[in-house]
């Protein structure tokens, strides 16, 4: 997947680097009180406030409204004529995982932990930050029916790997179905090479997991009842992860395009007693939205990407809005180191394709992706008590002309476009190139779709 290109513009790159050195080394502590005032505030949860203010206190949102009761000593940012939104959240990214997106050596690899590949200096994180992205779900690829476990990050570019992890975020696991597992294993003449094979692999995995879970449940029950002679079962990382899916401990995120496959996946989930958090890509959701809405499963979809393969052929740009009207919780996502930089404009397209209101469009890139990742109680909207993840935009963020001017995470400024150099406040040193979705020419633009 990686394709490195000898770099010629070293001169200009170095110039940029030097210019930004003066901005380095600032403290990572946010002001105790910060008020952004006189902005058009798009809250993502309770509409848009004209001439509104947002007050951040110790990194949390302490007030949102026409007026806020911040203390006199608060740092004030006058955002007259500008827009404020919650930070953009991408529920489907493969950024910062280098070439390690797919452990494509077996169709079932649930013990793969994406954190083991996470490179916190990847330039894709910086480019996303400059596009207002404050949180990402970094997912395993789609080669495997049951892939690996995701990392949830706060995009605090420049801080350490540990400091970039979203505190106490639920675990997510990536599933996939359809053409990708078929292609990967079918071309090697291995199972699965058909959709029947895909789902057989999945069912067998859960049958194995049921046995494993029972062994451990029995063991734990005996230990609890004081039985000292019971022998501990073998610990198997793969089966342990699968058993955790059955126990409902993991949010299940499924790469899936076709309407029939949504129905199959829901039936399997019901059979084995777990819930599907979201279908990703989900280009045909508009065909069965009502049913899937009733199952409580959301979607993370492309806006207008279609046609790259047969299962994308019925993708239409109205999918998001039509599915939303059927009651499905809809998020937009990037699956791309390119689109992640402009998810706000992707949301803007939803006004064009289907007539979403501007508030609905903003929700698709903030609160709804937060729900898919299970962090909507902490971020995704401008509500008192939530994390101070906030973006100030030059104009309406749904416009083509929108640029993120300031990006705050936990109340701390991480990007300021008015600064020279990179515009970063906490980053120093050297960025790493991206292994995935590097986008040299036309067809490589997307990630792991």
């Amino acid at each position, binding site marked *: 997947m990686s394709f490195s*290109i000898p770099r010629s513009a070293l001169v200009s790159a170095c110039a940029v680097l030097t210019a930004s050195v003066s901005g380095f080394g600032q403290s990572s502590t946010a002001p105790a009180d910060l008020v952004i005032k006189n902005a058009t505030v798009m809250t993502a949860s309770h509409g848009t406030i004209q001439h509104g203010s947002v007050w951040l206190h110790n990194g949390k949102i302490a007030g949102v409204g026409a007026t806020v009761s911040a203390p006199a000593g608060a740092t004030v940012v006058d955002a007259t004529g500008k827009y404020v939104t919650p930070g953009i959240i991408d529920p489907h990214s493969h950024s910062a995982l280098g070439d390690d997106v797919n452990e494509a050596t077996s169709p079932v690899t649930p013990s793969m932990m994406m954190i083991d590949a996470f490179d916190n200096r990847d330039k894709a994180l910086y480019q996303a930050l400059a596009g207002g992205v404050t949180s990402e779900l970094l997912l395993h690829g789609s080669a495997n029916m049951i892939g690996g476990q995701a990392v949830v990050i706060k995009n605090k570019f420049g801080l350490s790997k540990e400091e970039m992890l979203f505190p106490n975020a639920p675990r997510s696991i990536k599933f996939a179905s359809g053409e990708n597992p078929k292609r990967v294993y079918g071309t090697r003449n291995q199972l699965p090479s058909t959709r029947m094979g895909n789902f057989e692999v999945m069912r067998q995995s859960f049958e194995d997991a049921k046995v494993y879970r029972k062994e451990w449940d029995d063991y734990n029950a005996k230990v609890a009842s004081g039985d000292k002679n019971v022998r501990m079962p073998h610990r198997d990382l793969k089966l342990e992860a699968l058993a955790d899916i059955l126990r409902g401990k993991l949010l299940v995120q499924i790469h899936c395009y076709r309407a029939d496959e949504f129905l199959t996946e829901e039936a399997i989930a019901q059979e084995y007693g777990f819930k599907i958090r979201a279908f990703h890509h989900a280009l045909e959701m508009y065909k069965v939205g009502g049913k899937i809405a009733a199952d409580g499963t959301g979607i993370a979809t492309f806006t207008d990407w279609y046609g790259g393969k047969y299962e994308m052929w019925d993708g239409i740009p109205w999918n998001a809005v039509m599915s939303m009207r059927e009651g499905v919780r809809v998020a937009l996502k990037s699956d791309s180191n390119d689109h992640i930089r402009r998810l706000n404009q992707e949301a803007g397209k939803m006004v064009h394709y289907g007539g979403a209101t501007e508030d609905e469009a903003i929700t698709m890139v903030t609160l709804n992706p937060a729900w898919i990742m299970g962090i909507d109680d902490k971020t995704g909207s401008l509500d008192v008590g939530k994390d101070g993840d906030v973006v100030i935009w030059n104009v309406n963020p749904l416009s*083509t002309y929108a640029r993120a001017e300031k990006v705050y995470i936990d109340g701390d400024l991480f990007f300021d476009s008015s600064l020279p150099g990179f515009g970063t406040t906490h980053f120093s040193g050297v*960025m790493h190139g991206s292994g995935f979705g590097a986008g040299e020419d036309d067809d490589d633009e997307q990630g792991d779709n």
Partner: protein
Amino acid sequence: MLRNLFVDRFAAIRSLAAAGSLVLGFCGVTGVLAQAPMVDTTPGPGTIAITGGKLLTITHGVIENGVVLIEGGKITAVGSAASVKVPKGATIVDAKGMTVYPGLIDAETRLGLSEIASDRMTNDTVEPSEEIFPQMHVYDAFHAESEHIPITRFNGITNAVVAPANTDTIPGQDSFIQLAGRDRDTMLMVRDVALAMNFGEAPKRGGRGEGGGAGGARYPSTRMGEISQMRQALLDAQEYMARRARPAGGDEGAAAPAAGGGRGGAGGSNFNLRNEALIPYLKGEKPVVLGAYDGHDVETAMEFAKDFHLKVILSHVTRAQDVLDKIASYHVPVIVGPIFDLPEANERFDSVYSLPGELQKRGVKVILASYNVSNSRNLPYSAGFAVAYGMPYDEAMKSITLNPAEAFGLGDKLGSLDTGKIANVVIADGDPLDVRTSVKQVYINGVAIPMETRQTRLRDEYWPKK
């Protein structure tokens, strides 16, 4: 409201098309690779008057409450309501509150060469068996009924350059198309409009997609190889030209094989397809589109082009931020992009977004393109991003209208709202460069195109009832 206005016109067009070719009736939504219905763009009788809209003329500013008259497939008048008299009997199209502008031109696409990217059988983007293939004509592969074409024009793109993919140094010749017409030949405005040339990483053999490594490499596997091979090919063609220019009965004959070792040069014939194909470009009669990404590649490629006096349109340059002044000094049009190419590590996040503006500021005639198939419909937003990062609005509009028209030799026919030009006209409900804007009606050759695609049919079939 505008929608209602067009309903009757649509119905008329549909019945016409159905009577003419029956294609619309065949076009089921469920077919996997349905053929998009062709639209007959033979202009009807009478005059169409688009009134009341905000006209973005491109060549002479913005006209509020303007009128565009269309007759016989041509624009016959453009001006303010006060200055243009609408003839009696004209079909009035009320564009009050709307923006009216010339059809957009995507200066590089693979439209008609690729239907489903993952299925090789539906892809004819490039011939990989040789590097030097100027005798490849994309029109031989161009699939006029591609479903991507109506989907693209739905967003106001009416013309495009169809070019082969960039993995050969000389992969063939581009065609310039209209995005509607009753058959392929009508859609091909200029069959061989330019020669595609590429330099740098993408055309390397043994590089991308071929495993790489010293053992797997074939010639040319380096930039030196690419230039050397291209230089040889152009020298061969020059020699060929010279030989053919000599009077018959000279020193040539069957004994002298056609230079370039090309196919078609075998036996007693001196005619050589490869060399023939290069002649108009060596004579400077038509442009070559020269693709290079990095600054040093741009410099090398331009040196090479200068040696052969090629008429150049530069392309890509998205990693050439270090040589912008030099690019300006070439005085050639530049297709920049795609603007969504990613900056390199340790570059500022907007180093590509700002490139069109930086070049335009230096006097370069900037053109924007999608270099894509299914993303061609997003062309206007490329120009919008250029505006967001420093390009003046009027120049950004030019970069997807008049500038590509002029660079490809069609400046007298397309690219602006001017009397005498082909009536490719778009009506939208707002700023064409904004993602929130919807195109309401597209005219190609003065004919209102049904605003219907495979995707709108799926939308209408499944639109939520409640």
